[in-house]
C-alpha cells in the first residue's frame, strides 16, 4: 500500500489492526478485474447482452401471459353480460314455473283418466259394442 504512514514508527499495532489491514489488502485484490486480456470488453458486452436477452424473453413471456389473461377475462365478462339464448323454452322458466307446469300436466292426465273410467261405468254396453266392432 502506498502512501504516508498514519501511525508513527514503533507504534504497537494490535493484532486486530493487522488483521484489518490484511482484509483490506485481500479486498483490493478481490476487487481487481480478473480478466485483463484484449477480449475483456467484448466478453463483458457479451455477458451484458446475454443478461439483456434473458430479461427480454422474460418480459415477452410476461407480456403474452398478461395478454392471454386479459383475453380470457374479456371472454368471461362477455359470457356473463350478454343474454344467453337458449332454444328450449324450458331454460327460460324459473324452477317454480317449471314445477307448476309439470303439476298441471299431471293433473290434466289424471282428470282425463278418471273421466274415461266414469264413462265406462255409466255405459258398459257401449264399451263392449265398441270392442265387438273392433
Amino acid at each position, binding site marked *: 500500500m502506498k502512501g504516508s504512514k498514519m501511525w508513527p514508527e514503533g507504534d504497537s499495532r494490535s493484532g486486530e489492526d493487522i488483521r*484489518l489491514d490484511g482484509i483490506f489488502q485481500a479486498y483490493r485484490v478481490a476487487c481487481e478485474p480478473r480478466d485483463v486480456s484484449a477480449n475483456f470488453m467484448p466478453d463483458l458486452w457479451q455477458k451484458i447482452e446475454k443478461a439483456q436477452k434473458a430479461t427480454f424473453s422474460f418480459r415477452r413471456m410476461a407480456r403474452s401471459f398478461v395478454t392471454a389473461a386479459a383475453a380470457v377475462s374479456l371472454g368471461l365478462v362477455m359470457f356473463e353480460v350478454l343474454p344467453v339464448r337458449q332454444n328450449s323454452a324450458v331454460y327460460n322458466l324459473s324452477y317454480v314455473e317449471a314445477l307448476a307446469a309439470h303439476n298441471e300436466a299431471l293433473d290434466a292426465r289424471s282428470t282425463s283418466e278418471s273421466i274415461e273410467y266414469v264413462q265406462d261405468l255409466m255405459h258398459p254396453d257401449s264399451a263392449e259394442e265398441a270392442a265387438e266392432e273392433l
Partner: protein
Amino acid sequence: MADLSEQQVMVADAAAGNKLDLEERRRQQLRETVDALLGSVSEEDRILLTLKEVEGLSLKELEAIYRVSENALKVRLFRARQRVLKSLGDMGDR
C-alpha cells in the same frame, strides 16, 4: 491413448472450473465481509477509508482531494477505523 488424454483434459477442465468457482466464492465472501464492515461507518467515512485502505491513496493525496489538514484526516480515519475494528470484533464474537 487419445481417449485417455481427452479424458484427462476433461478432468483438468472440471478441476480448473471448480477451482475458479471456489476462488470466485471466496472473493465474493470477502467482498461481502468488507461491505458489512464498511457498513458500520457513514458514507463519507466509507469513501475515505476505501480511498486510503483499498485504493491506497496517500494522506497527501487525500489532503488534496478533501482540502483539509493532514491531522484532521488522520483523526477522521482513526475514528472510522476504530468503528470498523469494533465491527470486526463483533463479527468475530458471533
